[in-house]
């Protein structure tokens, strides 16, 4: 297994100069810890991104060095989640809880936190324990929301 690379937040990437005038946020470490725990406890998970309700990435961890533009990924994933909710609404069925984008050997799961404060993006490749993911993802969503509410 490769090393785990926490990525910088979008805010850091886009407003690095402005941010350098402010002290480093203290919530970053516990949030990264929760993401890293999830990454290491669910086999097959490659990347986790936390995106805010506008689709901007807040935090992420990856087994390998991120090879993707996470700003674009999280924006499109949150759009997919919102459109999925709208599909359910227009079909007069109850609220959608997750949207899963599937390929032959990969999956990307998008799931909102309980109050919709943020969205979790989980990218998986190869054999993934989906049952374990089902059980663990809500716990991660709770932990992420707790961290974000302290901001």
């Amino acid at each position, binding site marked *: 297994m490769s090393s785990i690379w926490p990525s910088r937040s979008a805010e850091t990437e886009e407003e690095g100069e402005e941010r350098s005038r402010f002290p480093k946020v203290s919530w970053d470490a516990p949030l990264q810890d929760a993401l890293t725990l999830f990454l290491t406890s669910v086999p097959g998970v490659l990347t986790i991104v936390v995106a805010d309700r506008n689709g901007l990435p807040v935090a992420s961890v990856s087994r390998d060095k991120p090879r993707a533009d996470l700003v674009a*990924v999280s924006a499109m994933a949150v759009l997919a989640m919102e459109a999925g909710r709208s599909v359910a609404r227009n079909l007069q069925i109850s609220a959608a*809880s997750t*949207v899963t984008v599937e390929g032959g050997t990969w999956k990307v799961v998008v799931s909102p936190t309980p109050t919709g404060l943020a969205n979790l993006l989980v990218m998986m490749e190869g054999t993934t324990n989906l049952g374990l993911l089902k059980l663990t993802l809500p716990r991660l969503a709770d932990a992420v929301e707790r961290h974000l509410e302290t901001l």
Partner: protein
Amino acid sequence: MDPTASVLESDADEDGTALDAVLGAFLGAVPEATGVVVAGATGKPIASRLPAERIQLIAATAMAKLVAWAGEAVAANLHLSGMVAITIDGPSWKVIVAPTPSHAAAVVVTLRAVDESLEGLPTM
């Protein structure tokens, strides 16, 4: 969605067409499926077989096409190829949006929960 709904309705103009027959055969072959819609390139419904309920069909297919587009964008930005479907999960239902091979249209299938014993567990 009422899984016991037996009344099916389809676009009036599509009755008797080959596509309508395909949708009927699909519903007959997949017991968990409660409805199926084909959305065209612009997101408008081409043919549908859904339970007779107060659904907003045009809005649903337009949003389903947007889901498919956003899903493909997610995959492209992650350098993943070969997206086959997007699944929208609810507490006791699923909606699968699958683009056709040429991506000229998308098939939207509504399903009730396959494994009733899993109801109550967190969905994904």
